């Protein structure tokens, strides 16, 4: 294989990794803070993509940039409504009840999506400025792939700044560790949870919005993405944002290599990656053994 085609494959792997990271970061934040494995996270992703398609088809291709901001904000609002109406009632319940509750939300949102957007798949054109490809030596990269990688890096940087340098971020970390003590120190943990869930939904919505031009948007997106996102989070370690980044890269690479070597077996590679990692580190790469 030539260096150029390897580079192209690597970039494509990083594109997959980038979009997976944006989604998995939200999933892992929510899991870390509230100990909830949110299946409806995939629905938020799908809604992000659908909302972009609606905004772009109503207002034209120039509205893509607006939709990139608006869609995640709408999804974040939806997420906060879900948190207040459903999840808040199951935080102190067992995992099965929580899982059923988020699965119920997933099913409801899936049906609503069919009602709003129909069963036909939609496409969002790549914005003119990001369409086409860039030549580098003999290789050519799709410009939009670079944009996705850049967006993921920006999200990663943003989350790092949030968790490292802001009071809100420290509160989130403190809640992950000991929400009771955080409450005893005067933080309204309920409100914090709503905000964290909103942030998680925002990230899922943004992930869906960013990849909207890369794929056909239909009502199966939610189920497809949630499995991959969970694998990323499990590989990285539940609750760890850095883990989500590394997990996303591993999954992206395995998928790209799988397609390169044995295309018909490609989907098996990400499960293989998960098995290998969990064999070596049962709590994931950046995970700590079950926190009390």
């Amino acid at each position, binding site marked *: 294989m030539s260096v150029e085609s390897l580079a192209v494959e690597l970039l494509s792997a990083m594109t997959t990794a980038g979009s997976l990271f944006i989604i998995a970061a939200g999933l892992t934040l929510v899991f870390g803070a509230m100990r909830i494995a949110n299946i409806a996270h995939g629905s938020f992703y799908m809604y992000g993509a659908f909302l972009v398609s609606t905004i772009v088809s109503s207002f034209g291709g120039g509205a893509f940039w607006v939709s990139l901001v608006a869609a995640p904000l709408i999804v974040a609002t939806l997420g906060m409504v879900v948190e207040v109406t459903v999840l808040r009632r199951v935080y102190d319940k067992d995992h099965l009840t929580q899982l059923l509750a988020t699965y119920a939300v997933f099913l409801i949102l899936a049906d609503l999506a069919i009602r709003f957007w129909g069963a036909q798949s939609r496409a969002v054109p790549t914005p003119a400025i990001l369409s086409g490809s860039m030549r580098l030596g003999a290789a050519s990269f799709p410009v939009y792939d670079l944009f996705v990688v850049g967006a993921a890096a920006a999200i990663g940087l943003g989350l790092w700044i949030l968790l490292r340098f802001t*009071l809100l971020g*420290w*509160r989130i*970390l*403190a809640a*992950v*560790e*000991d929400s*009771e*003590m*955080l*409450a*005893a*120190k*005067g*933080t*309204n*943990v*309920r409100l914090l949870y709503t905000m964290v869930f909103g942030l998680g939904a925002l990230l899922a919505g943004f992930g869906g919005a960013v990849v909207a031009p890369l794929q056909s948007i239909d009502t199966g997106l939610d189920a497809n993405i949630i499995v991959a996102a969970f694998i990323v989070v499990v590989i990285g370690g539940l609750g760890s944002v850095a883990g989500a980044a590394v997990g996303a890269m591993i999954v992206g690479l395995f998928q790209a290599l799988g397609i390169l070597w044995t295309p018909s077996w490609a989907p098996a590679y990400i499960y293989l990656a998960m098995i290998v990692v969990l064999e070596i580190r049962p709590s994931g790469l950046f995970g700590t053994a079950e926190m009390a």
Partner: protein
Amino acid sequence: MLQVDAIHTFYGESHILQGVSLNVKEGEVVVLLGRNGAGKTTTMRSIMSLTPPRHGRIGFVSRDITRYAPYQIARLGLAFVPSGRRVFSSLNVEQNLRLAQRGNREGGSGRTIDYVFRLFPKLAELRTRRAAFLSGGEQQMLKLGSALLADPKLLLLDEPSEGLSPAVVAQLGEWVRKLRDEGISILLSEQNALFALRLADRGYILEKGRVQHEAPARELLDSNEVRTYLGVKFSQSA
């Protein structure tokens, strides 16, 4: 200032506190004594509403706080310092302190992080160290420091001497006196009776979820009955 009226607290079905009543007056240091499992920690958790009582009433600065959420109670000026290593270990010293610092209330003391660093110079040196890597004594400083930044009127200290070396326990006594001198009322629970009674104005003895005895600290120190009852701990710390 704090008025606990016949509270009954349960963990699941087990009836832990069976009608505990106690009070702390402004400027007082009050100690809760009792063996492991007597209900000292549960009393504190009930006051903070971390384990809300099923019956009874808790009043603080002439408000009924029985149904308040923990964060609301904290904002009224009640600070809980739990026992053991409960600091936010993924955050560093300064982040722990800044997290604890509430917007200073009107008429509050206006304590700042610099004030805490003056009180505990060691913390200033360790400012960027993750709390997970602090010694037991340093974590105690951090817990006290962050409680102070919440600008409390009343401090609930749950077994502060637990797991500390004798030298650090002696220091802890100094800190508690200093806080009282700054006008903070203190309710502390202890198994180390000698240490606690030397600090306190008044004491309650808890046994099996009930208050068995209440008396001025001096009296409890001299009482043979109490010495026998808490004998083990007296000899350990004497």
